[in-house]
């Protein structure tokens, strides 16, 4: 699965993108696995209230199931406009 990071999540993790082997059933379970990858990951996911996610480019809640997702993204609340 492709996992993307944006804004300060990208900076804390030190990469905008990684390939992840996972059988996590939900986004929340995936987050737990990612947290263990590095100190940067742990820091990025330290406060989940500040983290938003998308599954296959659609906004998703953290309790959303992952099923056969090909692309998951994590990012802070958006600030465009």
């Amino acid at each position, binding site marked *: 699965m492709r996992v*993307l990071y*944006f*804004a*300060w999540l*990208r900076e804390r993790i030190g990469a905008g993108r990684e390939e992840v082997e996972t059988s996590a059933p939900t986004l929340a379970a995936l987050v737990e696995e990612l947290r263990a990858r590095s100190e940067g990951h742990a820091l990025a996911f330290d406060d989940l209230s500040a983290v938003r996610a*998308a599954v296959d*480019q*659609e*906004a998703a809640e953290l309790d959303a199931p992952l099923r056969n997702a090909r692309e998951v*993204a994590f*990012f*802070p*609340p*958006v*600030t*465009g*406009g």
Partner: protein
Amino acid sequence: MAAPVLHVSVQEADFDVAAECARLTEGRADVGALVTFTGLVRDRGGDVPVSAMELEHYPGMTEKALTEIAEQALARWPLQGAVVIHRYGLLLPADRIVLVATASPHRQAAFESAEFLMDWLKTRAPFWKKETTPDGARWVDARESDDAAAARWGRG
């Protein structure tokens, strides 16, 4: 009424407001009301001077999100067309960031839909702003007032 014009673009380059308006009005005489909103980079964020702004986005999702937002506006109001353009990359104070334009026979639909587009764009389009200040660069925080503004339109 012919099929509405829908133009969405995510681009580094600046845009020409007059040319984008022409997309909505040229070759027709049934538009009565044309509203534009242009968002610009300000030289201050709160009390802090801002010398530059870096706009990051999520390629692929951004285009989809803006198209969905524009289609929602066309579904909710009797519009003859809508334009949504959002820039990314390095911008300087006074640079244009975003354009929303709507055309309708009547002014209320044009105004409301333009506000709707901006409110939804602010809360649903995957863009993130990083400001350069005298103390270094900082990510702009999302504003609760933007969530409240978006909530008044209900869920899509």
